[in-house]
Protein backbone atom coordinates (compact mmCIF):
# COMPACT_ATOMS: atom_id res chain seq x y z
CA UNK A 1 0.00 0.00 0.00
CA UNK A 2 2.86 2.35 0.79
CA UNK A 3 4.12 3.90 -2.41
CA UNK A 4 7.12 6.10 -2.88
CA UNK A 5 5.83 9.62 -2.80
CA UNK A 6 7.49 12.28 -4.95
CA UNK A 7 6.01 15.23 -3.17
CA UNK A 8 7.87 17.76 -5.33
CA UNK A 9 6.01 16.97 -8.51
CA UNK A 10 2.83 18.78 -9.53
CA UNK A 11 -0.44 17.36 -8.35
CA UNK A 12 -2.89 17.32 -5.51
CA UNK A 13 -1.71 16.09 -2.14
CA UNK A 14 -4.67 15.52 0.12
CA UNK A 15 -3.55 15.00 3.69
CA UNK A 16 -5.63 13.57 6.52
CA UNK A 17 -5.13 11.78 9.83
CA UNK A 18 -6.21 11.87 13.47
CA UNK A 19 -6.06 15.02 15.60
CA UNK A 20 -2.50 15.92 16.51
CA UNK A 21 -0.83 13.27 14.36
CA UNK A 22 1.42 15.85 12.68
CA UNK A 23 -0.35 16.64 9.40
CA UNK A 24 0.59 20.31 9.30
CA UNK A 25 4.11 19.46 10.37
CA UNK A 26 4.49 17.00 7.51
CA UNK A 27 3.14 19.53 5.02
CA UNK A 28 5.52 22.14 6.45
CA UNK A 29 8.44 19.79 5.77
CA UNK A 30 7.35 19.22 2.18
CA UNK A 31 6.71 22.90 1.48
CA UNK A 32 10.00 24.04 2.96
CA UNK A 33 11.91 21.67 0.63
CA UNK A 34 10.16 23.21 -2.32
CA UNK A 35 11.63 25.79 -4.64
CA UNK A 36 8.56 26.86 -6.63
CA UNK A 37 5.24 28.17 -5.40
CA UNK A 38 3.96 26.90 -2.07
CA UNK A 39 0.26 26.23 -2.21
CA UNK A 40 -1.78 25.13 0.76
CA UNK A 41 -5.41 24.96 1.70
CA UNK A 42 -7.43 23.60 4.58
CA UNK A 43 -10.87 23.30 3.04
CA UNK A 44 -12.58 21.57 5.92
CA UNK A 45 -12.01 24.44 8.26
CA UNK A 46 -13.99 27.60 8.86
CA UNK A 47 -13.19 31.19 7.92
CA UNK A 48 -9.96 31.24 9.90
CA UNK A 49 -7.36 28.55 10.15
CA UNK A 50 -4.52 28.40 12.66
CA UNK A 51 -2.58 25.89 10.57
CA UNK A 52 -2.41 28.16 7.53
CA UNK A 53 -1.46 31.11 9.73
CA UNK A 54 1.33 28.97 11.22
CA UNK A 55 2.60 27.90 7.79
CA UNK A 56 2.40 31.47 6.49
CA UNK A 57 4.61 32.70 9.36
CA UNK A 58 7.08 29.84 9.35
CA UNK A 59 7.69 29.25 5.65
CA UNK A 60 10.21 31.57 4.15
CA UNK A 61 8.59 31.86 0.74
CA UNK A 62 5.18 33.22 -0.06
CA UNK A 63 2.49 30.78 0.83
CA UNK A 64 -0.41 30.77 -1.56
CA UNK A 65 -3.29 30.14 0.79
CA UNK A 66 -6.29 28.51 -0.84
CA UNK A 67 -9.59 29.23 0.80
CA UNK A 68 -12.98 27.78 0.08
CA UNK A 69 -13.65 30.42 -2.56
CA UNK A 70 -10.88 29.33 -4.89
CA UNK A 71 -11.31 25.59 -4.54
CA UNK A 72 -12.50 25.62 -8.17
CA UNK A 73 -9.11 26.90 -9.30
CA UNK A 74 -7.25 24.08 -7.59
CA UNK A 75 -7.01 21.91 -10.67
CA UNK A 76 -5.30 24.68 -12.59
CA UNK A 77 -2.75 25.15 -9.83
CA UNK A 78 -2.21 21.42 -9.38
CA UNK A 79 -1.23 20.89 -13.01
CA UNK A 80 1.71 23.27 -12.48
CA UNK A 81 2.77 22.78 -8.85
CA UNK A 82 2.19 20.55 -5.87
CA UNK A 83 -0.91 21.67 -3.98
CA UNK A 84 -1.40 20.54 -0.38
CA UNK A 85 -4.89 20.22 0.98
CA UNK A 86 -5.23 19.43 4.67
CA UNK A 87 -8.37 17.72 5.86
CA UNK A 88 -9.47 17.62 9.49
CA UNK A 89 -9.32 14.48 11.61
CA UNK A 90 -12.89 13.58 10.62
CA UNK A 91 -11.85 12.73 7.04
CA UNK A 92 -14.56 14.93 5.68
CA UNK A 93 -14.35 14.21 1.96
CA UNK A 94 -17.59 16.09 1.32
CA UNK A 95 -15.74 19.40 1.48
CA UNK A 96 -13.74 18.53 -1.62
CA UNK A 97 -14.99 19.06 -5.17
CA UNK A 98 -14.75 16.14 -7.60
CA UNK A 99 -11.40 16.51 -9.32
CA UNK A 100 -10.89 15.54 -12.94
CA UNK A 101 -8.77 12.50 -13.55
CA UNK A 102 -6.13 14.45 -15.46
CA UNK A 103 -4.83 15.90 -12.16
CA UNK A 104 -2.50 13.51 -10.34
CA UNK A 105 -3.98 13.04 -6.91
CA UNK A 106 -2.23 11.57 -3.85
CA UNK A 107 -4.09 10.65 -0.72
CA UNK A 108 -1.81 10.78 2.29
CA UNK A 109 -2.67 9.68 5.81
CA UNK A 110 -0.42 10.89 8.63
CA UNK A 111 -0.94 8.28 11.32
CA UNK A 112 0.49 7.70 14.77
CA UNK A 113 2.33 4.44 15.34
CA UNK A 114 0.32 1.45 16.48
CA UNK A 115 -2.85 2.35 14.64
CA UNK A 116 -3.78 -1.05 13.23
CA UNK A 117 -6.67 -0.51 10.87
CA UNK A 118 -8.75 2.57 10.33
CA UNK A 119 -10.77 4.45 7.75
CA UNK A 120 -7.54 6.23 6.80
CA UNK A 121 -5.93 2.93 5.82
CA UNK A 122 -8.73 2.29 3.35
CA UNK A 123 -8.77 5.79 1.98
CA UNK A 124 -5.07 6.63 1.65
CA UNK A 125 -2.61 5.49 -0.97
CA UNK A 126 0.32 6.77 1.06
CA UNK A 127 0.90 6.33 4.78
CA UNK A 128 3.20 8.62 6.70
CA UNK A 129 4.30 7.87 10.24
CA UNK A 130 3.23 10.76 12.42
CA UNK A 131 3.73 11.41 16.10
CA UNK A 132 2.16 10.24 19.35
CA UNK A 133 -0.19 7.43 20.14
CA UNK A 134 -3.68 6.97 18.85
CA UNK A 135 -6.42 8.20 21.12
CA UNK A 136 -9.21 5.63 20.90
CA UNK A 137 -11.88 8.23 21.33
CA UNK A 138 -12.81 10.79 18.70
CA UNK A 139 -13.15 14.26 20.19
CA UNK A 140 -16.81 15.11 20.66
CA UNK A 141 -16.32 18.84 21.11
CA UNK A 142 -14.33 21.48 19.31
CA UNK A 143 -13.97 24.97 20.68
CA UNK A 144 -12.49 27.66 18.48
CA UNK A 145 -11.93 31.22 19.65
CA UNK A 146 -10.57 34.03 17.55
CA UNK A 147 -8.15 36.04 19.71
CA UNK A 148 -6.84 38.36 17.01
CA UNK A 149 -5.69 41.64 18.55
CA UNK A 150 -5.51 40.17 22.04
CA UNK A 151 -2.19 40.39 23.90
CA UNK A 152 -1.36 38.02 26.74
CA UNK A 153 0.50 38.36 29.99
CA UNK A 154 2.96 35.45 29.54
CA UNK A 155 2.72 34.22 33.16
CA UNK A 156 -1.08 34.07 32.91
CA UNK A 157 -0.99 32.37 29.53
CA UNK A 158 1.40 29.81 30.94
CA UNK A 159 -0.97 29.15 33.83
CA UNK A 160 -4.12 28.83 31.75
CA UNK A 161 -2.35 26.61 29.17
CA UNK A 162 -1.08 24.37 31.97
CA UNK A 163 -4.58 24.08 33.43
CA UNK A 164 -6.11 23.46 30.01
CA UNK A 165 -3.66 20.71 29.09
CA UNK A 166 -3.86 19.06 32.51
CA UNK A 167 -7.61 18.58 32.56
CA UNK A 168 -8.85 21.57 34.56
CA UNK A 169 -11.48 22.42 31.95
CA UNK A 170 -12.40 18.94 30.75
CA UNK A 171 -10.60 16.20 28.86
CA UNK A 172 -8.49 17.83 26.16
CA UNK A 173 -7.17 15.59 23.37
CA UNK A 174 -5.75 18.28 21.18
CA UNK A 175 -5.15 21.99 21.65
CA UNK A 176 -3.35 24.48 19.49
CA UNK A 177 -3.09 28.20 19.47
CA UNK A 178 -1.34 31.29 18.24
CA UNK A 179 -0.86 33.82 21.01
CA UNK A 180 0.60 37.32 21.09
CA UNK A 181 2.50 38.21 24.22
CA UNK A 182 3.24 41.60 25.69
CA UNK A 183 6.88 41.82 24.58
CA UNK A 184 5.61 41.95 20.99
CA UNK A 185 6.27 38.35 19.99
CA UNK A 186 3.80 35.68 18.86
CA UNK A 187 3.96 31.99 19.65
CA UNK A 188 2.58 28.73 18.37
CA UNK A 189 1.38 26.39 21.16
CA UNK A 190 0.54 22.79 20.42
CA UNK A 191 -0.61 20.00 22.68
CA UNK A 192 -1.59 16.38 22.03
CA UNK A 193 -2.86 14.26 24.94
CA UNK A 194 -0.10 12.09 26.37
CA UNK A 195 2.70 14.33 25.09
CA UNK A 196 4.40 17.47 26.33
CA UNK A 197 3.29 20.78 24.91
CA UNK A 198 5.28 22.18 22.01
CA UNK A 199 6.05 25.90 21.70
CA UNK A 200 7.54 27.81 18.81
CA UNK A 201 8.09 31.49 18.19
CA UNK A 202 6.51 32.73 14.98
CA UNK A 203 8.44 34.72 12.40
CA UNK A 204 6.28 37.77 12.67
CA UNK A 205 7.43 41.35 13.02
CA UNK A 206 7.58 42.34 16.68
CA UNK A 207 4.60 44.47 17.66
CA UNK A 208 5.40 47.09 20.29
CA UNK A 209 2.79 49.64 19.26
CA UNK A 210 -0.98 49.16 19.50
CA UNK A 211 -2.52 45.77 18.87
CA UNK A 212 -1.04 43.12 16.55
CA UNK A 213 -3.04 42.39 13.41
CA UNK A 214 -1.90 38.83 12.66
CA UNK A 215 -4.30 35.95 13.24
CA UNK A 216 -4.39 34.75 16.83
CA UNK A 217 -6.68 32.13 18.27
CA UNK A 218 -7.12 28.82 19.99
CA UNK A 219 -8.66 25.52 18.99
CA UNK A 220 -9.42 22.86 21.59
CA UNK A 221 -10.75 19.35 20.88
CA UNK A 222 -11.93 16.99 23.57
CA UNK A 223 -14.69 15.77 25.85
CA UNK A 224 -16.76 17.56 28.51
CA UNK A 225 -15.07 20.86 27.85
CA UNK A 226 -16.03 23.78 30.08
CA UNK A 227 -15.97 26.21 27.17
CA UNK A 228 -17.13 29.13 29.30
CA UNK A 229 -14.29 28.68 31.80
CA UNK A 230 -11.72 28.36 28.99
CA UNK A 231 -12.96 31.58 27.41
CA UNK A 232 -13.15 33.56 30.65
CA UNK A 233 -9.72 32.47 31.87
CA UNK A 234 -8.18 33.35 28.52
CA UNK A 235 -9.89 36.74 28.66
CA UNK A 236 -8.58 37.34 32.19
CA UNK A 237 -5.04 36.66 30.93
CA UNK A 238 -5.11 39.47 28.34
CA UNK A 239 -4.01 43.06 28.81
CA UNK A 240 -6.44 45.95 28.61
CA UNK A 241 -5.53 49.01 26.49
CA UNK A 242 -4.11 50.96 29.40
CA UNK A 243 -1.87 48.16 30.65
CA UNK A 244 -0.82 47.27 27.11
CA UNK A 245 0.35 50.77 26.24
CA UNK A 246 2.13 51.06 29.60
CA UNK A 247 4.11 47.84 29.09
CA UNK A 248 4.71 48.43 25.38
CA UNK A 249 6.29 51.79 26.23
CA UNK A 250 8.62 49.95 28.63
CA UNK A 251 9.59 47.41 25.98
CA UNK A 252 10.17 50.16 23.42
CA UNK A 253 12.58 51.89 25.76
CA UNK A 254 14.43 48.61 26.48
CA UNK A 255 14.71 48.07 22.73
CA UNK A 256 15.97 51.62 22.17
CA UNK A 257 18.56 51.24 24.95
CA UNK A 258 19.87 47.92 23.71
CA UNK A 259 20.26 49.32 20.20
CA UNK A 260 22.48 52.08 21.57
CA UNK A 261 24.66 49.52 23.37
CA UNK A 262 25.10 47.15 20.45
Amino acid at each position, binding site marked *: MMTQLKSQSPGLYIVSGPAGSGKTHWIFQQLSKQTGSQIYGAPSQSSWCLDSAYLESQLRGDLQNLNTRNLAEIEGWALKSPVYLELGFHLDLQVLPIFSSCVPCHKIAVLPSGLAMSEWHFWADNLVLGVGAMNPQMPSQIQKSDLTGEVF*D*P*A*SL*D*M*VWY*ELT*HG*AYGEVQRAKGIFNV*VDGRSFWFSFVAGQDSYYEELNRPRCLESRPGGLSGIEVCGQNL*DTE*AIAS*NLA*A*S*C*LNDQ*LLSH*YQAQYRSYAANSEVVS
Partner: protein
Amino acid sequence: MKIAVLSCIHGNYEALNAVLLDLEQHKAEKIYCLGDLVGYGPYPNAVVEMIRSLDIPTCQGCWDEDIVEGLNACECSYPSLLAEQRGKLAHEWTHERIYPEVRDYLAQLPLSLREGDLCFTHGSPQNQHEYLLPEMNAFAALERVLSTGANTLFCGHTHVPYVRTLEAGSIRLRVDYKGESGEETVFTTPLRRIVNVGSVGEPRHGRPNATYVLYDTETDHVQLREVEYDYQKTCAAIIEQGLPPIFAWRLARGLEFAERADDPSHICER
Protein backbone atom coordinates in the same frame (compact mmCIF):
# COMPACT_ATOMS: atom_id res chain seq x y z
CA MET B 1 8.53 20.94 75.20
CA LYS B 2 7.08 19.91 71.92
CA ILE B 3 5.40 22.71 69.98
CA ALA B 4 3.42 22.65 66.77
CA VAL B 5 3.63 25.53 64.29
CA LEU B 6 0.99 25.97 61.59
CA SER B 7 0.41 28.54 58.89
CA CYS B 8 -1.76 29.39 55.90
CA ILE B 9 -4.99 27.58 56.71
CA HIS B 10 -6.92 29.68 54.19
CA GLY B 11 -10.43 28.72 55.25
CA ASN B 12 -9.78 25.00 54.85
CA TYR B 13 -11.56 23.61 57.89
CA GLU B 14 -11.04 19.93 56.95
CA ALA B 15 -7.29 20.37 56.69
CA LEU B 16 -7.12 22.25 60.00
CA ASN B 17 -9.00 19.48 61.80
CA ALA B 18 -6.71 16.81 60.39
CA VAL B 19 -3.65 18.76 61.52
CA LEU B 20 -5.09 19.33 65.01
CA LEU B 21 -5.70 15.61 65.33
CA ASP B 22 -2.21 14.77 64.09
CA LEU B 23 -0.45 17.15 66.47
CA GLU B 24 -2.49 15.80 69.37
CA GLN B 25 -1.38 12.27 68.47
CA HIS B 26 2.20 13.53 68.47
CA LYS B 27 1.68 15.05 71.90
CA ALA B 28 2.37 18.64 71.02
CA GLU B 29 1.96 20.72 74.14
CA LYS B 30 1.62 24.11 72.57
CA ILE B 31 0.46 25.41 69.18
CA TYR B 32 1.50 28.56 67.32
CA CYS B 33 -0.21 29.84 64.22
CA LEU B 34 1.46 32.10 61.66
CA GLY B 35 -1.68 33.55 60.09
CA ASP B 36 -3.52 33.48 56.76
CA LEU B 37 -6.55 31.98 58.47
CA VAL B 38 -8.79 33.14 55.62
CA GLY B 39 -8.78 33.48 51.83
CA TYR B 40 -9.43 30.98 48.97
CA GLY B 41 -11.08 28.37 51.18
CA PRO B 42 -14.79 27.93 51.89
CA TYR B 43 -14.85 28.18 55.72
CA PRO B 44 -13.07 31.36 56.88
CA ASN B 45 -15.35 31.94 59.90
CA ALA B 46 -15.17 28.36 61.14
CA VAL B 47 -11.38 28.33 60.94
CA VAL B 48 -11.06 31.55 62.93
CA GLU B 49 -13.55 30.31 65.50
CA MET B 50 -11.60 27.09 65.95
CA ILE B 51 -8.27 28.91 66.38
CA ARG B 52 -9.89 31.27 68.92
CA SER B 53 -11.62 28.54 70.85
CA LEU B 54 -8.29 26.75 71.31
CA ASP B 55 -6.59 30.00 72.35
CA ILE B 56 -3.79 29.49 69.84
CA PRO B 57 -1.28 32.37 69.80
CA THR B 58 -1.51 33.67 66.21
CA CYS B 59 0.25 36.25 64.03
CA GLN B 60 -1.46 38.26 61.33
CA GLY B 61 -1.04 36.90 57.81
CA CYS B 62 -1.17 38.80 54.53
CA TRP B 63 -4.72 37.68 53.83
CA ASP B 64 -5.85 38.54 57.36
CA GLU B 65 -4.39 42.01 56.91
CA ASP B 66 -6.03 42.49 53.51
CA ILE B 67 -9.43 41.47 54.84
CA VAL B 68 -9.10 44.07 57.60
CA GLU B 69 -7.45 46.88 55.64
CA GLY B 70 -8.77 46.25 52.14
CA LEU B 71 -6.67 45.13 49.20
CA ASN B 72 -4.86 48.46 48.83
CA ALA B 73 -2.94 47.76 52.02
CA CYS B 74 -1.09 44.99 50.27
CA GLU B 75 1.88 45.42 48.02
CA CYS B 76 1.76 43.55 44.77
CA SER B 77 2.11 39.87 45.46
CA TYR B 78 0.55 38.28 42.43
CA PRO B 79 2.74 36.71 39.78
CA SER B 80 0.28 37.19 36.93
CA LEU B 81 -2.89 38.96 35.83
CA LEU B 82 -4.83 35.73 36.14
CA ALA B 83 -3.60 35.01 39.69
CA GLU B 84 -4.44 38.61 40.58
CA GLN B 85 -7.96 38.31 39.21
CA ARG B 86 -8.52 35.08 41.14
CA GLY B 87 -7.00 36.57 44.30
CA LYS B 88 -9.39 39.52 44.06
CA LEU B 89 -12.31 37.17 43.56
CA ALA B 90 -11.34 35.19 46.65
CA HIS B 91 -10.86 38.41 48.58
CA GLU B 92 -14.31 39.74 47.67
CA TRP B 93 -15.95 36.41 48.43
CA THR B 94 -14.31 36.28 51.88
CA HIS B 95 -14.94 39.96 52.56
CA GLU B 96 -18.68 39.51 51.99
CA ARG B 97 -19.01 36.49 54.25
CA ILE B 98 -16.77 37.21 57.16
CA TYR B 99 -18.48 37.99 60.52
CA PRO B 100 -17.71 41.38 62.12
CA GLU B 101 -16.25 39.75 65.25
CA VAL B 102 -13.99 37.61 63.07
CA ARG B 103 -12.74 40.73 61.31
CA ASP B 104 -12.15 42.41 64.72
CA TYR B 105 -10.16 39.38 65.84
CA LEU B 106 -8.00 39.42 62.69
CA ALA B 107 -7.43 43.18 63.12
CA GLN B 108 -5.81 42.85 66.53
CA LEU B 109 -3.38 40.03 65.64
CA PRO B 110 0.30 40.89 66.16
CA LEU B 111 2.88 40.88 63.36
CA SER B 112 5.15 38.54 65.27
CA LEU B 113 5.37 36.53 68.49
CA ARG B 114 8.37 35.65 70.66
CA GLU B 115 8.97 32.65 72.90
CA GLY B 116 12.47 32.28 74.30
CA ASP B 117 14.89 32.25 71.37
CA LEU B 118 12.11 31.53 68.90
CA CYS B 119 10.33 34.08 66.78
CA PHE B 120 7.08 33.47 64.90
CA THR B 121 5.94 35.54 61.97
CA HIS B 122 3.91 35.18 58.75
CA GLY B 123 6.03 36.52 55.87
CA SER B 124 9.01 38.25 57.38
CA PRO B 125 9.35 40.08 60.71
CA GLN B 126 9.03 43.36 58.79
CA ASN B 127 6.11 42.61 56.52
CA GLN B 128 3.34 40.00 56.19
CA HIS B 129 3.69 40.20 52.42
CA GLU B 130 7.42 39.57 52.16
CA TYR B 131 8.48 36.15 50.88
CA LEU B 132 11.45 34.53 52.58
CA LEU B 133 12.18 32.12 49.75
CA PRO B 134 14.72 29.33 50.33
CA GLU B 135 16.97 30.75 47.60
CA MET B 136 17.04 34.25 49.10
CA ASN B 137 20.61 35.48 49.44
CA ALA B 138 22.19 34.33 52.68
CA PHE B 139 23.03 37.76 53.97
CA ALA B 140 19.50 39.09 53.51
CA ALA B 141 18.08 35.96 55.13
CA LEU B 142 20.44 36.25 58.07
CA GLU B 143 19.56 39.91 58.45
CA ARG B 144 15.86 39.00 58.77
CA VAL B 145 16.57 36.56 61.59
CA LEU B 146 19.04 38.85 63.37
CA SER B 147 16.50 41.69 63.34
CA THR B 148 14.29 39.64 65.66
CA GLY B 149 17.02 38.80 68.15
CA ALA B 150 15.88 35.16 67.98
CA ASN B 151 17.88 32.14 66.88
CA THR B 152 15.10 30.41 65.03
CA LEU B 153 12.55 32.21 62.91
CA PHE B 154 9.37 30.35 62.02
CA CYS B 155 7.54 31.68 58.98
CA GLY B 156 4.93 30.65 56.40
CA HIS B 157 3.42 32.56 53.47
CA THR B 158 5.30 30.81 50.64
CA HIS B 159 3.20 27.63 51.11
CA VAL B 160 6.29 25.50 50.50
CA PRO B 161 7.97 24.22 53.67
CA TYR B 162 11.73 24.28 54.17
CA VAL B 163 14.40 24.50 56.85
CA ARG B 164 17.35 26.72 56.16
CA THR B 165 20.36 26.84 58.41
CA LEU B 166 22.46 29.97 58.22
CA GLU B 167 25.90 28.78 59.22
CA ALA B 168 27.74 30.46 62.01
CA GLY B 169 29.96 32.72 60.02
CA SER B 170 31.60 36.03 59.91
CA ILE B 171 30.69 39.04 57.90
CA ARG B 172 33.55 41.32 56.93
CA LEU B 173 32.73 44.91 56.38
CA ARG B 174 35.17 47.49 55.07
CA VAL B 175 34.26 50.97 54.10
CA ASP B 176 36.63 52.62 51.64
CA TYR B 177 36.53 56.38 51.63
CA LYS B 178 37.84 58.44 48.71
CA GLY B 179 40.31 55.82 47.58
CA GLU B 180 41.74 55.28 51.04
CA SER B 181 41.07 51.86 52.45
CA GLY B 182 39.21 52.02 55.70
CA GLU B 183 39.22 49.76 58.69
CA GLU B 184 37.80 46.30 58.46
CA THR B 185 35.13 45.25 60.92
CA VAL B 186 34.36 41.58 61.43
CA PHE B 187 31.03 40.41 62.87
CA THR B 188 30.65 36.85 63.98
CA THR B 189 27.19 35.40 64.16
CA PRO B 190 26.12 32.13 65.75
CA LEU B 191 24.02 29.57 63.93
CA ARG B 192 20.57 30.84 62.96
CA ARG B 193 17.72 29.11 61.30
CA ILE B 194 14.62 29.82 59.25
CA VAL B 195 11.86 27.23 59.40
CA ASN B 196 9.09 27.62 56.87
CA VAL B 197 6.17 25.52 58.04
CA GLY B 198 4.37 25.32 54.68
CA SER B 199 0.61 25.51 54.48
CA VAL B 200 -2.22 23.66 56.18
CA GLY B 201 -4.98 24.55 53.75
CA GLU B 202 -3.46 25.62 50.40
CA PRO B 203 -0.26 23.65 49.82
CA ARG B 204 2.00 24.36 46.92
CA HIS B 205 4.24 21.33 47.03
CA GLY B 206 2.45 19.30 44.37
CA ARG B 207 0.29 17.16 46.68
CA PRO B 208 -2.93 18.08 48.45
CA ASN B 209 -1.66 17.09 51.91
CA ALA B 210 -1.48 19.63 54.72
CA THR B 211 1.95 20.48 56.12
CA TYR B 212 3.02 21.86 59.50
CA VAL B 213 6.03 21.60 61.80
CA LEU B 214 6.66 19.95 65.17
CA TYR B 215 9.53 21.44 67.11
CA ASP B 216 11.14 20.05 70.24
CA THR B 217 12.59 22.88 72.30
CA GLU B 218 14.79 20.50 74.30
CA THR B 219 16.39 18.56 71.47
CA ASP B 220 16.10 21.43 68.95
CA HIS B 221 14.68 18.92 66.48
CA VAL B 222 12.44 20.16 63.65
CA GLN B 223 10.02 17.65 62.19
CA LEU B 224 8.11 18.50 59.06
CA ARG B 225 4.72 16.78 59.05
CA GLU B 226 2.69 16.07 55.94
CA VAL B 227 -0.86 15.09 56.80
CA GLU B 228 -3.36 13.47 54.48
CA TYR B 229 -6.96 14.57 54.86
CA ASP B 230 -10.19 14.34 52.92
CA TYR B 231 -9.41 17.20 50.52
CA GLN B 232 -12.30 16.16 48.29
CA LYS B 233 -14.62 17.46 51.00
CA THR B 234 -13.00 20.88 50.82
CA CYS B 235 -13.07 20.76 47.01
CA ALA B 236 -16.80 20.00 47.07
CA ALA B 237 -17.40 22.83 49.54
CA ILE B 238 -15.45 25.28 47.34
CA ILE B 239 -17.83 24.58 44.47
CA GLU B 240 -20.94 24.45 46.68
CA GLN B 241 -20.12 27.81 48.24
CA GLY B 242 -19.79 29.46 44.86
CA LEU B 243 -16.03 29.87 44.72
CA PRO B 244 -14.44 29.27 41.28
CA PRO B 245 -14.11 25.51 40.55
CA ILE B 246 -10.51 26.08 39.45
CA PHE B 247 -9.67 26.67 43.16
CA ALA B 248 -10.79 23.10 43.87
CA TRP B 249 -8.85 21.75 40.90
CA ARG B 250 -5.63 23.39 42.07
CA LEU B 251 -6.16 22.44 45.73
CA ALA B 252 -6.53 18.78 44.76
CA ARG B 253 -3.13 18.97 43.06
CA GLY B 254 -1.25 21.01 45.64
CA LEU B 255 -0.91 23.89 43.18
CA GLU B 256 -1.76 26.99 45.13
CA PHE B 257 -0.88 29.83 42.78
CA ALA B 258 -0.62 33.10 44.65
CA GLU B 259 3.12 33.07 44.93
CA ARG B 260 4.94 36.26 44.36
CA ALA B 261 6.83 36.55 41.13
CA ASP B 262 10.50 37.28 41.61
CA ASP B 263 10.62 38.53 38.08
CA PRO B 264 10.38 42.32 38.34
CA SER B 265 8.94 42.49 34.83
CA HIS B 266 5.82 40.53 35.78
CA ILE B 267 2.56 42.13 34.86
CA CYS B 268 0.02 43.33 37.37
CA GLU B 269 -2.55 46.05 37.64
CA ARG B 270 -1.03 47.83 40.58
